[in-house]
């Protein structure tokens, strides 16, 4: 049996010393290579903390995180990240924003000047994939929120990351734009097959996108339920109205409700 790509084993994370807030405790999960996993949970359950632990931005207080067979003991160099805010650089045009990771990632920075043409073609290809063809010379402020988020997604993908970490990437967008971007992201994933960990509180988003959905408890967060998503791909907006889709969302909603009521008891 092959080893999972991401292994999180009994991880705990406490902020601010011994008496600090316990964000995660006894949290374990595995993600296979090329798998799309969504982590859902009530707000403040430590989902974003999980992101930072997996990418090695922060060390865990207890437990182990293993990515690609190696224990994480510092920031990874193979991860692409996108957040709720697009965090584009306002002084760079779209193409230059997308190519920012290539200027800093150790495996690309030296090759960038020699193979700029190849990299630019790759960036344009990505922009086409997310529906931003012809926008590469625009500044971020000339784009709508959804287009900025698409650009941010391209920036997370430009260096062909083996691991894509998405922290509520669509939660600041309106529902229609969000549904558009689900299809875009699914398309990207089916084309490039990166391993994806998507943190979200939108259950429909999780069911639309993920192969497997993990439910986190309220703080201190740990995984309390797991659902394999049997829905065939590519999923479309129509899929979201099928009984199977609705049943899975409903099922997950029950766990969230339980996690939230637990929150009221413990605090």
């Amino acid at each position, binding site marked *: 049996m092959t080893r999972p790509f991401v292994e999180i084993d009994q991880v705990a994370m406490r902020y601010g010393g011994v008496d600090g807030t316990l964000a995660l405790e006894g949290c374990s999960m595995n993600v296979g290579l090329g798998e799309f996993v969504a982590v859902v949970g009530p707000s403040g359950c430590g989902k974003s903390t999980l992101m930072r632990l997996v990418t090695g*931005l922060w060390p865990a207080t207890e437990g182990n995180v293993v990515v690609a067979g190696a224990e994480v003991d510092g920031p990874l*160099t193979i991860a692409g*990240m996108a*957040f709720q*805010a697009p965090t584009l650089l306002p002084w760079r045009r779209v193409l230059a924003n997308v190519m*920012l990771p290539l*200027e*800093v990632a150790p495996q690309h920075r030296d090759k960038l000047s020699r193979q700029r043409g190849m990299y630019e073609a790759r960036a344009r290809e990505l922009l086409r994939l997310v529906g931003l063809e012809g926008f590469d010379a625009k500044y971020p402020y000339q784009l709508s929120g959804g287009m900025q988020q698409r650009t941010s997604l391209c920036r997370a993908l430009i260096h062909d990351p083996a691991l894509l970490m998405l922290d509520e990437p669509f939660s600041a967008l309106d529902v229609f734009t969000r549904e558009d971007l689900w299809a875009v992201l699914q398309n990207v994933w089916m084309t490039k097959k990166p391993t994806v960990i998507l943190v979200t509180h939108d259950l429909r988003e999780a069911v639309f996108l993920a192969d497997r959905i993990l439910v986190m408890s309220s703080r201190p967060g740990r995984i309390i339920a797991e659902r394999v998503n049997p829905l065939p791909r590519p999923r479309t907006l129509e899929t979201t109205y099928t009984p199977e889709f609705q049943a899975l969302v409903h099922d997950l909603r029950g766990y969230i409700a339980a996690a939230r009521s637990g929150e009221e008891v413990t605090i």
Partner: protein
Amino acid sequence: MAQMSARAQARYNAMAAAARRRRRLQTLLPWLVIIAMFGIWEIACVAFDIPVFILPAPHNIWHAAVRWWQPLLQDSLVTLYSTLAGFGMAIVAGLLLGVAIGSSTLVYKGLYPLLIAFNSIPKVAVVPVLIIWFGIGMWPAVITAFLISFFPIVVNVATGIATVEPELKDVLRALGARPRDIILKVGLPRAMPYFFASLKIAVTVAFVGAIIAESVAPNAGIGRLMMVASSRFDVPLVFAGLITTGLMGIVLYWIAEIIERRTTGWATRGTDQHLAAGG
């Protein structure tokens, strides 16, 4: 529909005309205000018969300026030179220190109290010390201009760098970016609007610094000219010096603003069009 659109057209034309008038007024307004100020000043001096050695009327000042134009020009150039030299040093030191303070909490914690204490010292009190160290000459003026103008630059550059979004730092760090990359690619460009905002303040206070030093150690420059003039009760010439200083301040501010608009237009794009229309 047709009737409605004719009325709408008239309304649109009226609004466009009003906007044009407003824009013309905006262009003229600074000049009108300055002319009005001198007008009221002149009238007040004549009407209340104010002695020239208390408050000279604009025409007295003008005569003094015309009569003494040569020393006025020479001393202005000396002051301008000292100011720009000190200001240039402040830009270099301010950028370096600002980057260090903005990117390292340790440097920030360590240096900030000292910097604030230092900035609280009246620079006029430092000039005698500078004279002891460097002798009478242009150096006290240059260094006073530097000391007074570098603090706003440090604070603004540090703020620009320290307020880089943590998410953006995470994105870059998860790619294996070194701290230096984050400062060069994100921190510095991001700090540029802050930097230019501080330049506009710094360039005007640099004049203050240079002239303070020139007044305390009268060797050359507008400060010395005003000291000499006031010791002779030549108040019109003192005012001519003050106005010349103000003029140089406006010109340098204006240059800083043009450079700012050229280089960091992305940060003011909301008001840029308005500014372009207004100015």
